[in-house]
């Protein structure tokens, strides 16, 4: 990912079109204290890992982002916002701004993940894992259950129980082989026909605020973003490209694929709002837990989730008043 900026064609920046504002590394208070006291992030990371993960990598991402923004502003005259999310939304569909997009979203994801962590008060010893740890079945006993009743009941309604939610969350994170994050998102299910017909809710498109009634778990890979309205139809678009190249004949009688259906209906009026992210990438556990320590790392992450932050991020819950089945 870091190499992108170097491979982009460099153009001599003209002073006139130079971008005035540049990004700097955001401050995350918990990590700042870890850095200043040179102590471990209790229960999860050693101080060196925190330094590598946030202060070094974060800085690299910021620099990369600034650099590619500079290059882009030299070549185009688009209006530029200083909000990271706006930048991501503007650049995601444009291959020429790939560098900006990926640095931006990587920075956003990293910040989102680290901001939702707090130190674990219980004593946990970090240790390097052994090959036999691969065979261990995950722990069934766990702490750090969200205290906020609203969040807790919403989790239980969406996933069945806190235990099931934890299993799903950690399994999704564990299954990521490369870089990627697992997100807890609030989902608005406006595409349900019954809801559309109900007079109490305005038609999507003419919308008032989206109605969130469900929590879900989503994975993103590399510099992926959660927002479905942005990323919708990626697979379909890729397929269409390939089909155009191959000039395949499409049988009109066959049913469409799942991707097509998804593209046509699912994302039109659906919105995902991220509330929690867990990074399942290797760089997070290799230093402290070793090659075989992903399970242990994820279990420790669970104990370190700051549910207060998650609660603050949650949108207003709309209880589903019509059962669709």
């Amino acid at each position: 990912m870091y190499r992108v900026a170097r491979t982009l064609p460099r153009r001599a920046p003209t002073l006139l079109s130079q971008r005035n504002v540049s990004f700097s590394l955001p401050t995350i208070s918990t990590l700042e204290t870890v850095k200043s006291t040179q102590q471990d992030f209790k229960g999860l990371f050693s101080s060196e890992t925190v330094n590598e993960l946030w202060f070094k990598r974060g800085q690299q991402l910021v620099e990369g982002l600034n650099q590619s923004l500079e290059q882009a502003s030299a070549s185009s005259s688009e209006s530029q916002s200083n909000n990271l999310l706006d930048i991501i939304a503007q650049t995601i569909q444009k291959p020429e701004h790939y560098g900006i997009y990926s640095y931006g979203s990587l920075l956003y994801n990293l910040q989102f993940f680290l901001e939702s962590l707090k130190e674990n008060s219980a004593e946990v010893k970090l240790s390097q894992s052994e090959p036999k740890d691969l065979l261990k079945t995950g722990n069934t006993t766990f702490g750090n259950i969200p205290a906020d009743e609203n969040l807790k009941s919403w989790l239980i309604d969406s996933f069945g129980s806190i235990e099931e939610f934890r299993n799903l969350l950690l399994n999704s994170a564990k299954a990521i082989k490369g870089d990627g994050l697992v997100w807890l998102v609030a989902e608005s299910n406006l595409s349900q026909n019954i809801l559309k017909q109900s007079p109490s809710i305005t038609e999507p498109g003419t919308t008032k605020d989206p109605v969130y009634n469900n929590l879900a778990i989503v994975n993103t890979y590399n510099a992926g973003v959660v927002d479905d309205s942005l990323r919708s139809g990626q697979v379909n678009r890729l397929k269409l490209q390939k089909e155009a190249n191959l000039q395949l004949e499409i049988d009109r009688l066959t049913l469409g694929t799942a991707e097509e259906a998804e593209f046509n209906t699912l994302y039109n009026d659906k919105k995902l709002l991220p509330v929690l992210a867990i990074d399942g990438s290797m760089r997070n556990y290799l230093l402290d837990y070793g090659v075989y320590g992903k399970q242990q790392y994820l279990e420790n992450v669970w104990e370190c989730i700051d549910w207060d932050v998650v609660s603050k991020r949650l949108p207003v819950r709309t209880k589903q008043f019509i059962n669709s089945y």
Partner: protein
Amino acid sequence: MKIQTKATSVLERTSHYLKVGVLKQKPTWYDIVGAYPPHTDLTKKPKVIEAKLQNQDPGESIYAHNAASGFYKTRPSKHDRRQQNNAISRLPKLEFLEDQLRDVFYHQHPWEFSRPKTLVETHGDEVSKCDWATMLQFNKPLDGESVVQRTIWLLAQNKHQQTELSLFEAYDKARFEFYKLRMEEEMNSTVSREESSMYGAVYPSTNIEWGLKQEQEHIDVWADIASEKTKVSQANQGRNDASVGEADDIVDVQKSIWETSFEIEGEKEK
């Protein structure tokens, strides 16, 4: 010639045969057995006979003099002729706890049978490589057998540590571990698929579609054969219905029912 039961006399007898000329060539084992003669008789004999508790020929006791009646029995009764000790020749029923657990598990999870399983082992001792301190194994995929073995291990561990754990508790513990691992496995494959599609992999057909395609190739071949056979059998039915001995029958065999009826109508027109 009387059947020789004594292994020890094999050398003596063979040398006799050689001397007489029954055997022309010396057997290859002859010299070796001569140098190291067998000193134990390996023939198995029933203990009762060795201890002289019973005659070697049970008939002798049947026909013995009956002191009470003063008669001799000359012919065995139906009872005497019947096989007396059936239990000795019957195979014992082997009962294991593992089998009971397997039975319970596969009754509760019948779809576990539908998972493909390899029965081939290189040395036949794959089980010995497994350590059931954990349910996952390097040498063995996760399946019902894992639950059984893990339960047994938990029970043994429990006995060792002298804690209270019933068979059902041990089984449930193993079963829930199994569920947890299966969930993990399933998530793993889903995420793998998603991840690789994000990296550009395209899946032109689902597993089911692929399976149907493979099946269809064989069905097509079969359909040809079947349609031939149907024609023949239909034609044969036609011949059975027809009157015997007409020369036209053989021609009819090659035609389908539709052709036949068509022809009859044509004849009527004539």
